[in-house]
């Protein structure tokens, strides 16, 4: 199965430079090699069938017949040895603690700005900065409760943080469903390979939600607020709510009275203490943010400011995952914790700094340019594969609005063997672990490994031809 496999000079997760299998992949190699190709393909197809029947799908917008697609699943897992995971855990924990201290500071005294570590205008011009929340204390002083940082591994084999998703990171249901799918398709695979379980994620999430409840008496009422069943992540919202045993609500299920949030039940109104919201800040409250939002709850910000309801994540965390602020995260870690960052950033140029901008404009064909506040792989220029025309357009955009752009060298993401229509071929991958900050910081051993299924592509987003893999952390 792996006989014809070529690493093509990239950093390969499974094989070393000389083509030898890395020790933590040995067990997997032995098991997989025992399968005839047809059998392997049949098992893979059964995963797709399972996802379709289960409705583990995302919606394709603007489709009259309501077409739903499955997120392509690759049966070859990504394996992380124990020592690497320990390193990642330490780095991610350090990062989320620092980011939370940063957010508290930004929304209170702003020491980091006063001390000149970050130029004030970067914060004040950040799209997701919410100055109206300065001075508001949030329950347990936690801002980013759930963080889905994207990690990549470069040609040197080192892990880098590519971005911090600190608003409403999605994908955690796939972490659990991919594991289920693989267990179903290869029931005997897990027995002796020492793969750590990811089952605890819903419990960890629920404990965190209960921990941040602003009310002491009784068991807190936690709910998951979804934009509704037409949202592409709706399956995930249902899945997590069910696994946690909490209600999933839409904006219209909630009402605010006397600065408390209630949900409408068949037996009257029930007070809600904690909301795991999967709606962006902009759409949360039409009386405060976007007036045309039909997804939110009028008045919910009043209840939040009065301290009567907790939101996870807090309002205004987007300022921490702004791609310009990303540039400053190593400094943020140093400033608040007095430590060196354990996980490095990808080298980054800020278009709003004169010298950086000059460099960016001169080197566009070698760089990746990203808009500061976009996600999902949109608003990006991949220099090496872009046409002259695209590069020209981006040049104009950068000059017109330098604050909105950063650039990074192209990191050739590590590759993992991936089942591509009957052959094992190398495809680029990244890793999104889910960091949960409640009573303490917990990271479920695993994550979502996304894979760029198009040959040669470096874009792993599901909207652009990406798929996913199960992620194994070994004991």
């Amino acid at each position, binding site marked *: 199965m792996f006989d014809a496999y070529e690493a093509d000079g990239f950093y390969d997760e499974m094989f070393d430079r000389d083509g030898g299998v890395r020790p933590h992949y040995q067990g997997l190699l032995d098991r997989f090699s025992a399968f005839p190709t047809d059998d392997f393909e049949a098992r893979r197809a059964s995963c797709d069938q399972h996802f379709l029947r*289960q*409705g583990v799908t995302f919606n394709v917008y603007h489709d009259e017949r309501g077409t739903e697609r499955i997120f392509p699943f690759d049966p070859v897992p990504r394996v992380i040895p124990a020592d690497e995971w320990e390193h990642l855990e330490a780095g991610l924990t350090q990062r989320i603690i620092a980011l939370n201290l940063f957010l508290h500071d930004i929304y209170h005294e702003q020491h980091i700005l006063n001390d000149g570590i970050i130029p004030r205008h970067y914060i004040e011009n950040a799209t997701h900065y919410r100055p109206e929340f300065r001075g508001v204390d949030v329950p347990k002083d936690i801002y980013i409760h759930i963080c889905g940082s994207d990690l990549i591994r470069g040609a040197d084999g080192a892990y880098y943080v590519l971005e911090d*998703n600190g608003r409403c*990171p999605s994908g955690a249901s796939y972490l659990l469903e991919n594991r289920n799918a693989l267990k179903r398709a290869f029931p005997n695979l897990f027995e002796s390979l020492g793969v750590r379980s990811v089952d605890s994620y819903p419990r960890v999430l629920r404990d965190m939600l209960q921990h941040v409840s602003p009310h002491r008496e009784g068991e807190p009422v936690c709910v998951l607020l979804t934009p509704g069943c*037409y949202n592409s992540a709706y399956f995930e919202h249902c899945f997590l709510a*069910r696994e946690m045993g909490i209600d999933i609500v839409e904006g219209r299920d909630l009402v605010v009275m006397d600065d408390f949030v209630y949900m409408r039940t068949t037996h009257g109104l029930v007070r809600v203490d904690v909301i795991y919201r999967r709606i962006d800040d902009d759409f949360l409250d039409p009386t405060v943010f976007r007036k045309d939002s039909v997804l939110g709850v*009028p008045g919910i910000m009043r209840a939040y400011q009065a301290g009567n309801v907790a939101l996870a994540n807090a309002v205004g965390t987007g300022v921490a995952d702004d791609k310009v602020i990303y540039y400053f995260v190593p400094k943020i870690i140093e400033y608040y914790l007095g430590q060196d960052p354990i996980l490095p950033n990808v080298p980054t140029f800020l278009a709003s700094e004169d010298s950086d901008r000059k460099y960016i404009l001169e080197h566009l064909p070698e760089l990746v340019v990203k808009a500061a506040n976009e996600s*999902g792989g949109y608003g990006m220029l991949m220099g090496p594969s872009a046409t002259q025309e695209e590069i020209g357009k981006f040049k104009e955009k950068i000059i017109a609005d330098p604050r909105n752009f950063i650039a990074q060298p192209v990191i050739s993401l590590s590759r993992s063997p991936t089942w591509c229509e009957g052959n094992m071929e190398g495809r680029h991958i990244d890793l999104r672990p889910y960091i949960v900050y409640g009573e303490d910081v917990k990271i479920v051993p695993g994550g979502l490994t996304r894979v760029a299924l198009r040959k040669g592509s470096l874009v792993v987003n599901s909207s652009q031809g990406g798929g996913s893999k199960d992620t194994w952390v070994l004991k």
Partner: protein
Amino acid sequence: MLSRVANSLYWMVRLIERADNLSRIIEVNGQLLLDHERLDSERLRAFWKPIILSTGDEALFSEQYSEAGSAEVIRFLTEDRKNPNSIVSCIAQARENARMVRDQLSEELWEELNSLYLFINSSEGEQLLQNDPPRYYETIRRATFTFHGIAAASISRSEAWEFMDLGRHLERADKTTRFLDITSFLPETEETAGGRGFQWTAILRSCGALGAFRTGHRGEPCASNVVDLLMFSPDFPRSVRYCADRIDRSLHRISGHPRGAYCNDAERVSGRLLSELSYGSTEEILEAGLHAYLDGLQSRFNEIGEEAFRAYVLLPDGVETRPPIPAASVSAVVAWQMAQQQQ
């Protein structure tokens, strides 16, 4: 439980039940029509009209079809996606409701409904409808039975269950009255001059009631003994009285109010209906006119449904709310807003 969830569970089951009954009605009508091959189109229209009236929208039908032949009506009722009450639309909407409350359903239950949805939208399903309609309808009926079976075996008898049960029995009671009404619209022919025994047999069969009839009655099916079974049987699960009893029971379990009294208008109407059925008689009904009586029942089922909605789903007075966003009217703006929530 959340009002919206109660509403979705109720409609999920109600629409499944509707799809099941529609497939039965189409079949029984098809069978009966075999005996009326010489019907002219006016007669045909008279024959199908009550069914379109009861299940779909007559205006919508005449808008889309110039002919009112059996083939057109059957297509309209089975697979027309523009008809919100066609079998295909019912199943799609039932699944849509199920999606909204997926966290409340067992995985098996969701999978069964989702598989049915995938089937009716597959080329396999479309071909079966083309080549072997009886098997197509049978597949749908079996799937709905399986759905009810899984629900019965996997859902706690909590409030959620009662809302589902309410939806099921309201729909079932309503459709049983539609079955009974079929003969009211069948034209007299030479064959029926001597009695309509074969028509009543067809109706019993399509209700799955032939077995129950044979164990409880002797002789040929006729108006009085079939009405007796399908209207007044206290035990047969499709009889109107049985369904009314279950409706009344569910309503009281939801409210916690003792039976025999009422605390909202849904309970008041259902209690009165149940006692009428408990003390009514077939002779009385047939004397007064079956069709008119069935009409009266149907409007009371509607009333119960509306009052239950008012009691449990609508907000208490004075609380500001916004209307739900129906699937059909998701505007570009809303779709765009919903698409924003990804990271």
